[in-house]
């Protein structure tokens, strides 16, 4: 990983989108209270959601979205070239996100579904994370990414400190919140192997963690496969499907 040494007096930042809902870019705009501070410290030179004037002299580029079409491939390569530091923002850019679900469907079917009768004009490739094509310096996982983590990364860049994602699983945040574990209510949750940082928001509202922030550093996936089948009576296909939602392109796989 590149060091986050301050790149210039006022780092120039840019925000790009590939195939995604652009929800992560919008999350930056939601940072109202700190956004003004950030704006003061950085120079935003390229941001489709917020400006029309653009420049290509970029210190830190934030990209959301999966690489899902041939033109995405070209774009992500260009972003890499133009940006000294490239940050993948959100589940789609970090792991391919839910876009990867199409990789498990019939290609012609989903192209017709998305593009109707013009489906042949819109070429597509299996959805993949940015890191499948270019070197990514930092990842801000989650669907959408956590805007406070974005601010944290910005802070680290300013201070020249290395940025690190939390290494503990979602269960830690869930327990700190004082929640009743969903397993005690008969649900299956991916919290034990999913990287914390979202404040365990889904279990806090009663929904199981679907792993949108990706896996912890050394996930015990053998344990997940064994426990969910042996202790919770799941079929291995169902366990795989649970992990596929956000995890199709993660390095670690269910054995």
């Amino acid at each position, binding site marked *: 990983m590149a060091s986050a040494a301050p790149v210039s007096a006022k780092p120039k930042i840019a925000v790009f989108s590939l195939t995604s809902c652009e929800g992560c870019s919008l999350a930056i705009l939601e940072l109202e209270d700190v956004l003004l501070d950030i704006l003061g410290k950085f120079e935003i030179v390229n941001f489709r959601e917020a400006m029309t004037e653009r420049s290509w002299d970029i210190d830190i580029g934030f990209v959301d979205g999966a690489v899902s079409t041939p033109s995405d491939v070209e774009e992500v390569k260009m972003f890499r070239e133009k940006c000294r530091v490239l940050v993948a923002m959100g589940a789609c850019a970090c792991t391919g996100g839910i876009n990867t679900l199409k990789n498990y469907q019939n290609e012609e079917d989903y192209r017709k579904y998305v593009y109707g009768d013009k489906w042949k004009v819109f070429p597509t490739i299996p959805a993949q994370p940015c890191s499948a094509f270019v070197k990514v310096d930092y990842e801000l996982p989650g669907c959408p990414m956590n805007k406070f983590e974005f601010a944290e990364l910005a802070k680290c860049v300013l201070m020249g400190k290395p940025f690190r994602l939390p290494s*503990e699983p979602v269960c830690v945040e869930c*327990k*700190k919140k004082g929640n009743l574990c969903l397993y005690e209510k008969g649900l299956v949750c991916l919290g034990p192997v999913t990287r914390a940082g979202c404040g365990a928001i889904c279990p806090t509202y009663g929904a199981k963690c679907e792993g949108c922030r990706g896996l912890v550093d050394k996930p015990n996936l053998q344990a997940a496969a064994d426990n969910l089948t042996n202790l919770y009576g799941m079929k291995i296909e169902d366990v795989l499907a649970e992990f596929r939602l956000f995890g199709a392109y993660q390095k670690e796989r269910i054995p």
Partner: protein
Amino acid sequence: MERVVTAKDLAALADDMLRAGRTVAGPVRRKERYFYEAVSRGADLAFDFNYCVYSPRSFFFPPGETLLTYSIGTNELNVAPEAPRTSPVIMGVHPCDCNAIGLLDAVFGSGVPDDHYLARRKDSVVVAVDCHGPCDPTAFCRDMGGNEAQEGFDVMLTPLNGGKGQAAERYLAAAATERGRELLAYNKVGKEPARADRDAAEKFREAKAANFSRRLPYAVEKLPAILDRSYNSLLWQVTAKRCYSCGSCNLVCPTCYCFTVKDVPDLSCASGKRVREWDGCQLQDFATVAGGHNFRPESSSRLRHRIFRKGKWIKEQQGRMGCVGCGRCDRACTAKISVVEIYTQLAEEA
């Protein structure tokens, strides 16, 4: 000092404390389970409950707290320590959790005393309530000696009726400390106990002993020696295969007291705060030190560490068992790893 109090008297006492400006907390029913929570009226407190999902430790040692704030001036560093202000009255604490508070008192009070913990504990009052019988099949408090409160409480409530699914309405309240006497003297709660009340309390204690069965096939005094012989057991690796290193077992444990300290600068980078947060020895990076070396990179070594802490090392350091047998770690472990089962299996091997 002893008084006979009803559940209503206790609720009224809680209301008195609230009016006096105190923070009052205790078991509150949230759908299917009980949780320790601060209340705004005494009637919300439950004294007849099975168990609380979390122990009351967070009232003295919260999951996250600010230790100090700082700002960097032109030529100086300004540091302002943050002082905890609430010292709660906790009503409805079972014996296991009282003993756990006693252990935390010993740990945070010795060595370099922990100001933050001690400030919260200083004027706090703990009202214990005794258990009729095992709160849950996972409990093994009898084996650990956890179901007899030795310390960590100011008043003990012994149920005088109820039991077997019937809620108790009357309690014998016995003060164990000066703070406990002050609490019971406050507005002269309840009434003077009659002889029949003392007899009923005695009967409760006799019945209680019979209600708890043992789960450990040996006396707990043997546990440290059994662990001694088990350091190289294969069991650690075999069991760790199922373990996620998720730390849930640590975070629900009433006796776990490990924390991590972080500096959190503001975006200005010119000011910020130092916070501490709960940590847990099962987590991957728990034993990682500056420079990146991890003393316990294997989950099997972390699992063994936890079991040794609970069953041997804390006893050696603090003269009290590090595990009160509340069963919370068993319930919290989604991999169904059970300490009492580990203790049992090791004895069979050793």
